[in-house]
């Protein structure tokens, strides 16, 4: 019977946590992609790699050090962008390589790669502990509520930063809050697909949903649905075919994107925009 797998506690935990992560990644991803921060998730995850190595090196729980290093890195990058003329993508590159550099350095000092490190690199959603389950669900609830509270401001900031500023938004503060939430989202999501594939969860469902949705609300709902669907299906398939869940999830997201692109090309969904009329 196909539903047997739902009887396993590790499967239940994996699916619930997976769905929660799918939701926060797609929500955060909408803003990241639209602000042309698509690779920001990757950069944060690589910072997290440095953080995890620091944890393993110093004996502190790696998740905490990952949070600390990534958030500090993200704030540092925002500051760097604001006060120097370094462009967004270059700043992301700086963040990415410094995280990775520190990580590699510390790992060599700790004595090479360990099982723990591998689970951070490639995800280990089915090996998740009860404590981590509660932690991830709690943080996800926090991320979702902050994004819901800030949705109007964030939408305005994303659409047109200067106008948002003129309308009295504290743009600088909002930018810092934004990267902190992004950092928390990325680190929390590491358990699902790992450091190396985190961008997939942030970017893929959103690109797909932007091809489908008309309005912002629709796009967000489509993105969350695609994301949750990919994660749940990915976990189930990976179990039956004995594959890595992270890779399966990501490839399902890619398949959905490609299918949507083809459908769009063939005119099956979201008819091409009518030729805009003049007034």
């Amino acid at each position, binding site marked *: 019977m196909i539903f047997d797998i739902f009887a396993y506690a590790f499967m239940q935990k994996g699916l619930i946590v997976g769905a929660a992560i799918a939701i926060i990644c797609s929500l955060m991803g909408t803003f990241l992609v*639209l602000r042309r921060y698509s690779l920001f998730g990757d950069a944060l995850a690589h910072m997290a790699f440095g953080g995890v190595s620091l944890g393993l090196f110093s004996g502190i729980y790696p998740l905490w050090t990952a949070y600390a290093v990534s958030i500090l890195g993200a704030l540092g990058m925002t500051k760097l962008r604001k006060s120097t003329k370094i462009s967004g993508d270059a700043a992301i590159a700086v963040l990415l390589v410094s995280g990775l550099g520190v990580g590699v350095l510390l790992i060599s000092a700790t004595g090479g790669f360990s099982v723990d490190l591998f689970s951070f690199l490639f995800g280990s959603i089915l090996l998740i502990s009860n404590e981590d389950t509660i932690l991830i669900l709690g943080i996800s609830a926090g991320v979702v509520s902050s994004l819901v509270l800030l949705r109007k401001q964030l939408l*305005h900031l994303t659409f047109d930063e200067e*106008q948002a500023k003129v*309308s009295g938004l504290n743009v600088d503060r909002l930018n810092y809050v934004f990267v902190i939430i992004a950092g928390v989202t990325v680190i929390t999501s590491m358990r699902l697909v790992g450091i190396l594939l985190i961008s997939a969860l942030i970017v893929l469902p959103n690109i797909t949903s932007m091809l489908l949705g008309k309005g*912002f609300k629709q796009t967000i709902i489509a993105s969350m649905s695609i994301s949750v669907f990919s994660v749940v299906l990915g976990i189930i398939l990976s179990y039956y075919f004995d594959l890595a869940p992270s890779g399966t999830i990501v490839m399902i997201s890619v398949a959905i994107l490609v299918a949507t692109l083809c459908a769009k090309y063939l005119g099956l969904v979201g008819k091409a925009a009518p030729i805009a009329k003049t007034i």
Partner: protein
Amino acid sequence: MSMKSLQVSDVSISYNGSLAIDKVNFDVEEGDLLGIVGPNGAGKTTLFRAILGLQNYSGVIKLFGLEGKKYHPLLPLVGYVSQKVNFEQNFPATVSEVVAMGILPEKKLHKNATVLQNCGCCWNRVYKKINKDSDKVLEALRTVNLESHKNKRIGELSGGELQRVFIAKALVKDPILLILDEPVTGVDVETQNKFYNVIKKINEENKITIVWSSHDLEAIAKFANRVACMNRKMFFHGQKEEFFSNKDLLKTYTESAMQIHMHHH
């Protein structure tokens, strides 16, 4: 007595040592539709950015009698449509959603209403209460004749329609002053005229004070009630009739515009 919405006195702005704006003076009374004419590079945008607190300047700018930083709390109530809005063409938002971004939170409105009341502005117009946000959006879209486009994705609109969406976005907050920076750049002539009528309507029917910049002298002649003419310096500022009856002034303006053009090419 009509209240001065905006006073700009001896404002100068320099970029890297050269003056972009040189001691500019003008003021705007409540209910005005002021057209600021000047060629490209005359400093119109720079001046607007200074008024909006986005640009450092020397001199004095007053909004409803409040000077400099003191009026900054009122800035959210100033509608501003910039010459070119840089937004992601593929942005997944409908026309209504974009207009709704302009709505200010109730708390902010209360605070601003108090500030305005204290400086004697007719704040009850500002604090006109429309029950629902969606009604405000619809009303603003109706004003710019775009009601039928409300559910379209923003990227599907033409340039002229887009500018009207941004005006609607500025209108939902019931602005105490609306600043339009060359709103019809890159729009065909027929569309431009319809657009000017919308501006006139907003000024006359919604009683919104408007400062509008353009290099289209003809349009300003037809629609504005007051004219300011600048090219780094302010050459003239006053009633429209006075401006167009003064041949010397027109000549100076045209010549300086030519100079600037030659300078640029």
